[in-house]
């Protein structure tokens, strides 16, 4: 709309009140998005960059790949009629819509990134080639390398599933019973020991490090 066609005139001085109000809307969206993201990724593992738009990721094999920021966006519209009638209930409704959409986009991006990374190194398991989801899970577990947290404690991998798939997997676990559970437990323990040992080897590279 050309400035001359814009019917809005405003009137009177309100200092920074308007800017602050809009900024708080943005802050609320950001805070809620942070909370949603923290459900998937620990805040300690969220990196923040002040400059640039790309970063290099060093791979275990010595190579490196370039990654960059991806933009998530959501477009909503505020009806002027809502303002005129002072329907403030649209504020939380709009905030929720933005947060939901942003979280959805973030989650989709994260799964896509993980899938792309696994595909690139061939570390994937096709569940359809197994008799049951539980056996596919077992195969996946075998292929995984566990990590440790900042205190050196082994951390188990996360399993992200939709509700229906999760229920099917649980049923399948129950069907296979204790033998499968024992097998999983055995592999898990072994992977944890390997993770701890790998971490110790890494730490020994520090000159001042001593094994506990």
């Amino acid at each position, binding site marked *: 709309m050309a400035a001359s066609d814009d019917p809005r005139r*405003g009137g009177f001085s309100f200092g920074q009140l308007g800017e602050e109000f809009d900024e708080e*809307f943005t802050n609320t969206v950001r805070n809620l998005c942070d909370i949603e993201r923290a459900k998937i990724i620990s805040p300690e593992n969220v990196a923040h960059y002040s400059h640039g738009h790309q970063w290099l990721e060093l791979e275990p094999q010595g190579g490196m790949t370039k990654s960059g920021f991806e933009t998530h966006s959501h477009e909503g519209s505020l009806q002027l009629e809502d303002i005129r009638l002072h329907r403030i209930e649209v504020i939380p409704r709009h905030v929720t819509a933005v947060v939901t959409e942003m979280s959805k986009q973030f989650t989709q991006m994260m799964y896509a990134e993980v899938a792309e990374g696994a595909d690139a190194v061939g570390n994937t398991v096709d569940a359809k080639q197994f008799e049951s989801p539980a056996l596919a899970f077992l195969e996946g577990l075998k292929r995984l390398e566990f990590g440790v947290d900042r205190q050196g404690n082994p951390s188990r991998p996360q399993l992200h599933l939709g509700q229906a798939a999760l229920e099917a997997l649980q049923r399948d676990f129950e069907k296979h019973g204790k033998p499968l559970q024992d097998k999983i437990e055995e592999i898990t323990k072994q992977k944890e020991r390997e993770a701890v040992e790998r971490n110790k080897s890494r730490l020994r590279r520090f000159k001042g490090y001593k094994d506990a």
Partner: protein
Amino acid sequence: MRSCLVIGSATYESDDLDELLGAKTDADNVYAVLTDPKLGAYDSSSAKLIDPTLEEVRDALAKFVLSSPPPDVFTFYFAGHGDVNGGTFYMLLRNSRIGQLSRTALGITEVFSLVNEGQPQQVNIVIDACRAGGLVFDLTQAIKAESLGAHISPNISLLATADIAQAAEETQEGGIATTALVRAIRGDDATPSTASYLDLVTLGTHVAARMAEAGVAQAPIVWGLNLTGLSRFALNPHAAKSVVPLIGTMTGAAASSPIAQQLEGRRDHLWRLYLDLGQGVDLGQLSGELETAMGLLDSEAGQASDFILGLSYSLPPRARASGEPFANAEVLAACAASLVKVGKKDPKAATAIEDIAKRFVAAVDAEMAALELPLLNNWRALLSRPSGYRDFVLLPLRISKLLGYMAAAEVVAEAHGIVRISGECTAANILQRLLTDFEGSFVCLSDQQAAYLSVFFASPICLRHQPEAEQIFGLMFADFIARGGRVLATQFTGSSAFQYCWALATETPMPATVQLAVPTTLLAVLLTASVRLNNEDAVDPYLHFLDHHGTNIYIPEDISEFMRPSIPNGVNVTLSVGAEHGLGIFTVADFRSAFTKYCSSALEKLNSDISPNERIAATLACMAQPDRILWPTFQPVPPVETAKGFAVDGATDG
């Protein structure tokens, strides 16, 4: 001593510079009106130079500005070619060369430097040249300097007749802008001012309006701040006869004004304030600075009134530059309100309040007239620019403020017998439109609205439009009940306003960071309005919804303190809805009784001490600092119409 140096640069030695048909005529006309004893009243020792060289102008400038003692008023006028080079504006003279401006033309910075060195008490600079607005660059540079203020005269006004990218139009009879200026000085064309002297800012604003009306594609730039009183560019042919000379006599003022000396330490702050006004009015900052500066002046000698009156002419045009409608009215309200402090001891205060208050009415009327048609055509006219979520807060506040300013203008107009051509009719139309289109926005957000509503419900407009006033009252009271009486305190940030709206919308507890008005003044205002509108019966059935709710009535001890940011003396009378003992309010009648019992004596004492002009200034104080209510003019008593206005409790307001 009043000196002027008038330059008409019509012909040039360089073939690159065309002859200017009207420059000589302009200089002749300006010099004639300025040296006319009944118009400009500049001394006969003033000078006019036609087609001078750079050296001749430099000599003349030095002679006038560096004379001892320096002139009380020095006016520099230039008509000729102008250009901007390297961020500096140059005036071209007979021997100037394009491409060698810094060596052969007169830079505006050179004029500033001489002025700063000579320190005339008041300086006016008028430039009718192409790209004259370029001088604003230089001025901004000077003001950014570390020694802000020290390098700028305490009183300087500028009129550049064309913006930096524009040509100054002229005919054989002279430049369009200068012709308009001369007509105004001669009195052929009246400015809105009725003061004894015309200042250049008022004249410049007038010239700009005339040029806009004539459709001339040339936007003059007007700039000026006068700290020592109203600038005396020329006598005002349309001065009100009752207005006494404001600062001494025309020639008798001391070269170094006592006001300027007293304000030396505040000069930087005042310049900063002036500059910031172009970005928007911060009424708290403005009122605070006026209060501080006035504290340095000798009120009994009339210095405070001179100072405020001068500012009241300088600041509104700058505020208008912010583009925010009503900004100039807000500044005028703050200026008039500040004088309540010296109303009793400053001999010129009453006159100054009257002068400013009248211009306040004109400003409100002009803004309402400008709003009326756009608002009738499109309700969005009241939205912010840019709008968005912020308007959930700004729109209701803006509507309350509009009601307050509309009503304050009525109060002032009635007190001073001002005949308004269309103000009342415009107000009625806007009021109708507000109720038709913004029913949902008559909501109670903050105690800030209490001040505006108190002036509205106390004003004649409320009685003239009783059905509309009742409707507004009904909407506001219903909303107050709906939000359980929870409204924001008078001062709040946009962040807490958002959290407040969020908590209400999500029905979650109010965060501790949100400062609510406890007790609230808004309830006392609404209850008082219900009495004045005879709506008590409609309120009583709903009061139980406000059980335990507190309301406050603050009455100052001395009206001279009424504009202080925080008023130190006085009493807060806090009444509680449904309190078992003491001041409990169960009906509006209880509120009336409690008000009479606990407030009347303090109000009577205060009322007996307020002059009509102080009452006007205090009313405008409620507009400028909306955390105070002028309870003497707004008591829970049904008003009775008298021949003189509306009488309440023995006092006549208006």
